[in-house]
């Protein structure tokens, strides 16, 4: 509050006007048909946050794309995972894993004799424990043995006898 000046009373008298009694009711009726505007999400702070998120996503995507394109996959190269799977899998394990998948062709079997397998295992264990030298360094002046001659023995194919075939047999 402030001390009143004589001029204030005159101004108060000038501005002493009241609205009509139905003024509020008319205002209510006027705004009744309109609805309050919904919250705008793409304004102000939200717009900045959305733009920053979009920029971050674009940058990460571009970085991933460049990284992938610098290490191309060689066509025809078999992924190492499948090789391992083929070597390790045995028919019994395969049967357990996929008993009801007849459509999948069976992987080729690696036939290793039990003796060779055991020897290979022992060699790997010895190499791991440093009991054997996996790549011994040979001296440079060591004499090289002459290569062994390649002997190709002739293959003899015995002709089939026509008389031994049964009549009507299909070849």
């Amino acid at each position, binding site marked *: *509050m*402030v001390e*009143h*000046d004589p*001029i*204030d009373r*005159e*101004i*108060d008298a*000038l*501005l002493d*006007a*009241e*609205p*009509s009694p139905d*003024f*509020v009711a*008319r*205002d*209510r009726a*006027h*705004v009744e048909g*309109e*609805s*309050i*505007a*919904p*919250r705008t999400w793409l304004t102000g702070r939200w717009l900045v946050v959305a733009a920053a998120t979009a920029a971050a996503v674009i940058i990460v995507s571009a970085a991933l794309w460049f990284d992938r394109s610098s290490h191309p996959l060689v066509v025809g190269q078999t992924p190492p995972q499948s090789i391992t799977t083929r070597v390790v899998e045995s028919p019994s394990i395969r049967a357990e894993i996929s008993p009801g998948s007849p459509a999948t062709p069976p992987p080729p079997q690696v036939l290793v004799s039990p003796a060779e397998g055991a020897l290979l295992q022992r060699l790997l264990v010895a190499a791991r424990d440093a009991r054997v030298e996996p790549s011994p360094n040979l001296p440079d002046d060591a004499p090289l043995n002459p290569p062994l001659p390649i002997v190709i023995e002739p293959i003899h194919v015995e002709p089939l006898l026509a008389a031994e075939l049964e009549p009507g047999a299909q070849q």
Partner: protein
Amino acid sequence: MHEWTSRLAGDFVSADEELEREFDARLVESSRLAFRVAFSVLRNREDAEDVAQEAFAKAHRHFRQLRDRERFRSWLVRMVWRMALDRQRGDRRRWTREAEHERARQLSPADAAVADERARMLWQAIDALPDKLRSVVVLASIEGHDLAAVARLLGIPEGTVKSRLFLARQRIKDHLAWLNTTRSIAR
């Protein structure tokens, strides 16, 4: 799922209803303020009510951003003031000084003439003020000379309101004195 969507829809409806109730409360408490601000510029009851009504319609559309009471009143005053000035500028010819005529009807013809003349001079002195001083004088009168309330409405420090009010009164008095002098010289 259906229950969840129904509950969500119900929440939205109740939030809108609450917002409408809140706006209605603001309308009731601020209607007199809006009308008097418009009247202080237009000096015509009908025009002042029209402007206040337009301002409320606009406030209703943007009410989500104006829920805070003080912000709402301050925004409303600024908007009504601007809209009233626009109407005054655009419709000067039709502009009638209703306040002066009403006062004149309650007095004897001689007194009414004197009062009418005094009111005309006072309005003239107020109109001659720059907007910054004029708004302070008008709002101080409307808000019962509560300078803190005027400061909140205008978004300026109370000290600034006080100094502007002092300056405005001084200019009004000077203007009235000058009008009296020119009138006596004319006689």
